[in-house]
């Protein structure tokens, strides 16, 4: 009898302790979620406030009763936001497409073909993975300037169409495809190229999609190289565009219009992320670095 009540007491305190711990956990997680989400909320909110309303608020309000889309219209008419978006789309699509082509062939050579000097070549490739971008960007800047490719798409695109890391990732994936498939195809008289196209690429589709998504994110956010290589507004990407808007566009104080531009720039990637959530997170944990 006495023992029984004791157990109940212990159980009760244990249960209470558990509730406290899990409450604290949820509170902590919510606090960080708010810190993450708040800037997004603030940019959407500000982009919906009218210019006059925003500037008359000495104490910023946390909501607005008279939302307006005027800022979005301004973002597209006053500055060339549309141009920046088109440029970035072209840059992203072309860079990613060329890169996929280049890395697929290189990964195929390393994974499937036998040739003289392959091991040494692979070793050299691997060692290039350690070279930081900052070290080579100086000469690339001079090279592209000398080739007269500043303010042009080739100048923007060409230096970033290879990635040793993605070659490595894809090669590992290609190597998991059983050799017997290859020999069967050889017996049937299939050429290497056809084998690559009809067998290896379809099997490795998940990895290729992951690489594509990571590259798209990288391209959409790239800032340093485009800034070095373009000073003609017609070739600005969104990052440079936003910097330009901040320093010269709209008149310095039209913050609602700036925020509208920020929302427009941020939406495509966020939508892409929400659609391919699993793929993006899996891909980043396999091969992403940022920070």
């Amino acid at each position: 009898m006495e023992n029984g009540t004791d157990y109940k007491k212990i159980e009760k305190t244990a249960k209470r302790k558990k509730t406290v711990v899990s409450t604290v956990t949820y509170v902590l997680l919510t606090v960080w979620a708010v810190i993450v989400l708040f800037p997004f909320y603030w940019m959407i909110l500000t982009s919906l406030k009218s210019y006059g309303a925003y500037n008359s608020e000495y104490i910023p309000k946390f909501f607005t009763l008279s939302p307006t889309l005027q800022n979005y219209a301004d973002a597209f008419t006053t500055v060339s936001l549309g141009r920046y978006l088109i440029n970035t789309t072209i840059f992203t699509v072309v860079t990613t497409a060329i890169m996929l082509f280049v890395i697929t062939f290189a990964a195929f050579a390393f994974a499937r073909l036998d040739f003289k000097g392959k091991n040494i070549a692979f070793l050299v490739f691997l060692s290039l993975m350690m070279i930081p971008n900052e070290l080579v960007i100086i000469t690339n800047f001079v090279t592209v300037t000398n080739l007269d490719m500043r303010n042009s798409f080739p100048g923007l695109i060409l230096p970033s169409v290879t990635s040793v890391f993605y070659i490595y990732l894809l090669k590992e994936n290609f190597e998991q495809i059983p050799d017997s498939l290859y020999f069967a195809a050889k017996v049937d008289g299939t050429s290497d190229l056809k084998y690559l196209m009809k067998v290896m690429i379809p099997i490795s589709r998940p990895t290729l999609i992951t690489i594509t998504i990571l590259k798209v994110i990288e391209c959409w956010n790239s800032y340093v190289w485009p800034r070095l290589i373009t000073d003609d507004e017609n070739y600005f990407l969104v990052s440079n565009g936003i910097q330009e808007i901040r320093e010269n566009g709209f008149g310095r104080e039209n913050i609602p219009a700036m925020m509208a531009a920020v929302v427009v720039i941020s939406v495509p990637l966020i939508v892409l992320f929400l659609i391919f959530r699993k793929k993006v997170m899996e891909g980043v944990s396999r091969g992403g670095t940022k920070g």
Partner: protein
Amino acid sequence: MNKKKLFDSSLKGWLYLLPAMLFLIVFMVYPLIDVFIYSFEEGYNSASQTYFGVGGYNYSYVLHDPYFLQAVKNTFILVIITVPLSTGIALLISTGINSIKPLRDLFQTVYFLPYVTNTLAVGLVFMILFKKTAYSDGLINLLITWFGGSSVDFIDGPYWAKMFVLCFYTIWVVMPFKILILTSALSSVNQEYYNAAKVDGTSKFRTFMRITLPMISPMIFYLIITGFIGAFKAYSDVVALFGTDLNAAEMNTIVGYVYDMLYGDSGGYPSYASAAAIILFAIVLTITCINLLISKKNVHY
């Protein structure tokens, strides 16, 4: 016949590699050699492409440049504050995520959002939140005065205030990657260890210190090493907050110094830029080696 066949297949292999090799040679191998050459050419003139002599003057110029020293100081402060702090908070949050069931997916999705946003764009939002203008003190200052503090301009104000915003924004930006890695590391720890500890009546804290931490220590060290490397290369988030004229804002970083030397109003000195970039590379390499040495002693694989 056989020899010819071998030659053919070798040729084919190299042919498949050719595009990648061409791009890598032009945009990576050649620049890598060239940057060292640049850094030793004294008095290089980018207009006439001539130089006076060969030696270490560029390095000594850079090392004596007050802007560079300021940039080094800023970068080191940023690294020392953000790397331990972001790793620690990420560990705390990941442990939290791992211990809950409902809403777990939602939290994970939300936490990942900063990864897929444009650093420059969201930096602008942070600037507005922290900035004090003639029209408004800004939201953060409003909160500070609510809690009885006095407002301060975080963007154009005192040095420590600017450094605070920079560190805060940097942590905000690097967190998704760390949380993602640590959450998956934590969930892959074998559940049997925990059950054994439970049977022994081990306290939660002790379990965490003795089982969880050692089990995920390789991932923590991986994050610390990549964190150091990433923070030493900080640049675009600084631009996002303080604009492109970083020297005037006293907020330049080493990478920012390199680009300023190369291009823009103060640019046109690829030799100085090269020397600074190589110094940066040397610093990062040294720190990474130290990290690896420490990790060898402390990490359980």
